């Protein structure tokens, strides 16, 4: 199998997480924000799998399956919320949702 050190593998997962985080902070389109959250979930699960492969244990993969279940739930509810947001406000821009903001 591969002889790459586990630090480099975790560094790769961290880079993937960082891209997702930057996307979540920069983009204002809610669909892209949800996609960035997906990327971050994926990177976090990858760290579990890397650690499990490093120690030769199955627990990392089991945790990834749990993360998969959480992700599926989050995506379905999030997409339903996006649909409702589009019905009410006719926009996908997260900054447009300022109904509760006070007028200065």
């Amino acid at each position, binding site marked *: 199998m591969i002889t790459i050190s586990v630090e480099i593998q975790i560094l790769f997962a961290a880079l993937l997480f960082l891209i997702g985080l930057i*996307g979540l902070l*920069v983009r204002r389109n809610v669909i892209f924000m949800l996609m960035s959250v997906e990327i971050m979930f994926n990177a976090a699960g990858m760290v579990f*799998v890397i650690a499990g492969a490093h120690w*030769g244990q199955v627990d990392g993969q089991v945790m990834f399956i749990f993360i998969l279940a959480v992700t599926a739930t989050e995506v379905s509810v999030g997409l339903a919320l*996006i*649909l409702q947001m589009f019905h009410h406000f006719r926009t*996908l821009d997260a900054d447009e949702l300022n109904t509760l903001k006070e007028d200065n």
Partner: protein
Amino acid sequence: MNTIFYIAAAVALISTGIAVSGRNAIHALLSLIVSLLSVSIIFFILGAPFIAALEVIIYAGAVMVLFIFVIMMLNVGMEKEMENRWLNPRMWIIPSVLSLILLIDFIYMLRAMTHPEAAGRIISPKQVGVSLFTTYVLGVEISGVLLLAGIVGAYHLGKQRKKVIHRFLKKETAETDESENIKNS
């Protein structure tokens, strides 16, 4: 094998960057699917074939189809000149090239895996399943409850209250609503 890992990692980083920074949602989703496929190859290299299969089936299959459904329903930003955009090779050439690289990577990896010494510490699906349903059976129950809550929540939030947003149906339904109101009054 190390080269395969580095190639797949580079493809994953590039396609994720494209997915996050894209303008069009569908094109970003295509790049995200390529990213998930390369992550799946990395899982395969790491000795987790079951997780690699789950990554393709659930992430790149189910979750991304859900995204595509919602984007198609909302129909944002792609109302004009769709065919011109689709026929423009600039839009699909990058994901295609990245997928081609991944395919070559994958074929090379499968040929390399046939050597007996290459099959090192592979954790088989059987081990994962046994651990999942003995040690972590409580977690399985809890995630089942979570999925049930997700179904109920998505159904409740997704219910439409007499408001049709599709642009073709919008005018007709508005008129029928008005006529119904007149009838009722």
